[in-house]
């Protein structure tokens, strides 16, 4: 992490000088006042300058990109990366053609990249952040597919009167199934088995 100590007549002046030197905005840094300025006796004896310590906060999105870029190169893809941030969630979405290699079977590669990226970024940060990776809206498309699947299988459960067990899914994907069916009065859903092989079960109430 980059830090800088600056001395000036006032705290404000010191901060401004530091920001200019580091070429960053106030939001991107942490300010610590090391010494408050004082005028001293008659402004001559014992006057002290203000001293501040400025620490540049690293942006999780930049850190994520730094981690992912060499991997993308090795995978032989050059996607356009769009980023956005909502609360603690940092989204990086990849756009371009032939990015299937980034998704893998049922999103396996994408989930692995996301998991490793979160570990690498959070290792360097004090406060935990969540990084979400996406390729060409894959996550949203997958969600729609899962909702359709949930409806189809709940119909099957109602028709046959037997419980339906789905294939193993990640917690995020299981949640989508549970949510999709939670308002169905005839159906109940629960998960069984151990991670990473936990599966959703759809049964009649």
């Amino acid at each position, binding site marked *: 992490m980059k830090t800088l100590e600056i001395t000036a007549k006032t705290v404000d002046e010191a901060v401004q000088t530091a920001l200019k030197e580091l070429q960053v905005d106030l939001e991107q840094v942490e300010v610590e006042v090391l010494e408050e300025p004082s005028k001293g006796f008659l402004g001559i004896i014992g006057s002290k300058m203000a001293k501040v310590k400025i620490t540049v906060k690293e942006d999780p999105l930049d850190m994520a990109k730094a981690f992912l870029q060499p*991997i993308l190169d*090795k*995978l032989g893809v050059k996607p356009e990366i769009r980023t956005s941030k909502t609360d603690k969630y940092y989204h990086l979405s990849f756009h371009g053609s032939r990015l299937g290699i*980034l998704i893998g079977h049922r999103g396996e590669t994408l*989930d692995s990249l996301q998991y*490793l990226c979160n*570990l690498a970024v959070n290792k360097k940060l004090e406060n935990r952040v969540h990084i979400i990776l996406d390729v060409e809206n894959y996550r949203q498309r997958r969600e729609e597919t899962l909702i359709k699947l949930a409806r189809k299988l709940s119909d099957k459960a109602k028709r046959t009167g037997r419980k339906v067990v789905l294939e193993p899914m990640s917690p995020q994907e299981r949640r989508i199934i549970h949510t999709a069916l939670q308002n169905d009065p005839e159906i109940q859903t629960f998960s069984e088995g151990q991670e990473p092989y936990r599966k959703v079960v759809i049964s009649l109430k």
Partner: protein
Amino acid sequence: MRELVENIARALVDNPDEVKVNMVEGEKSMILELKVAPDDMGKVIGKQGRIAKSIRTVVKAASSKEKKKVVVEIV
């Protein structure tokens, strides 16, 4: 391929300088032996091998263009 494993492992451990990847090439397969500091073993394996599994998944994706099967082993 070796660099890929090295890059990922270095980003996860506390002692990046001690990350070493040894490549053993066979006729049909390539074995990448990942070696890290003893204290960092958990950081590349993870709970129930979750991190190791993720590393293997990414390496598998990267090696899909090559004709050889790539195996990542943690030693």
